[in-house]
């Protein structure tokens, strides 16, 4: 530990307070009134699928398709998950199967 006890605690508290403030903001701003603005309802309805798309790309943001192995492990991983899911419709199988395939790719095939 390079920092003191209180410095460390302060860092954790600052991150905790800001993170909670962001997560609680919509409930503070729009709750209880019963009149959520239409635009907010619209965004609340349309953001989930959009954010899911964003999070997928976010997870893959550091993949380089210009250098070897050209994002192949990730591509194979994504196709495995999607393929398994379209085929069996079993969340656990898709996630576990895809992750194991990806781990084999990065640890053995493209290592």
């Amino acid at each position: 530990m390079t920092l003191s006890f209180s410095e460390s605690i302060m860092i954790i508290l600052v991150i905790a307070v800001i993170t909670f403030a962001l997560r609680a903001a919509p409930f503070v701003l729009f709750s209880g009134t019963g009149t959520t603005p239409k635009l907010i309802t619209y965004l609340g309805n349309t953001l989930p699928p959009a954010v899911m798309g964003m999070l997928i790309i976010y997870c893959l943001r550091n993949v380089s398709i210009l250098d070897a192995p050209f994002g192949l492990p990730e591509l194979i991983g994504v196709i495995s998950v999607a393929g398994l899911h379209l085929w069996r419709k079993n969340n656990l199988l898709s996630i576990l199967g895809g992750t194991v395939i990806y781990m084999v790719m990065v640890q053995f095939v493209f290592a």
Partner: protein
Amino acid sequence: MKQAIKAAFPFTIPVLLGYLSIGIAFGLLFENAGYNFIWAFFMSLVVYAGAMQFIAVSFFYGGIGLIQIAVMTLLVNIRHIFYGLSFLDRFNDIGKKKWYIAFALTDETYSLLCSIKAPEDIDEKKFYLSVALLNQSYWVFGSVIGSLAGSMITFDTTGMDFAMTALFIVIFIDQWKTYPSHIPALIGLSCTILALLIAGSDNLVIPSMILIVAALMLIKKQIETKITDISEKEDKIP
């Protein structure tokens, strides 16, 4: 509550896998920075933010001011400000527990709550609360294990964090099938790719969030006609 936890558990298994692996990785890193399992436990308990906690490990090596840390947290986690919007109506009458669920709205919990409905015989509010509680317990447990295990982990966990990507893909596909319009999903993908090309991978979240919201507003009319159907349907579900 016990029943609700039992009912919620199967839905949370994907998050269990993801959180255990990422939590363990966080615990390992934090331990390397000189912070033992009590610190890992405390941080995962009060902060509870996956990506942010990873970034935060670097703060503990010193040299970064609290204001800088505050700004960084704001930037990394600003996307969370949108998450609660999807649940305003659902959690409006849940009482004080609402604040715990708000606190617990991580990417994964948000995704999961977006995609599941409580079984008919289970109290809806207890069910959502159970999902949130279970998910955080995995995260806390994972980070403590990682911290304790240190270098004792004998198998190579490289690539295990792909479980999180896989979870998002699975939810993306499920939403793609059930959502009345594919436009928002496509906006999410294309705007983020665009942001990645423009801003690069280090500052991805804010530009893509701005582009996504802007795009959604721009073609609000086209999407809205299709969306009204879904919100009406959602209202009918008790």
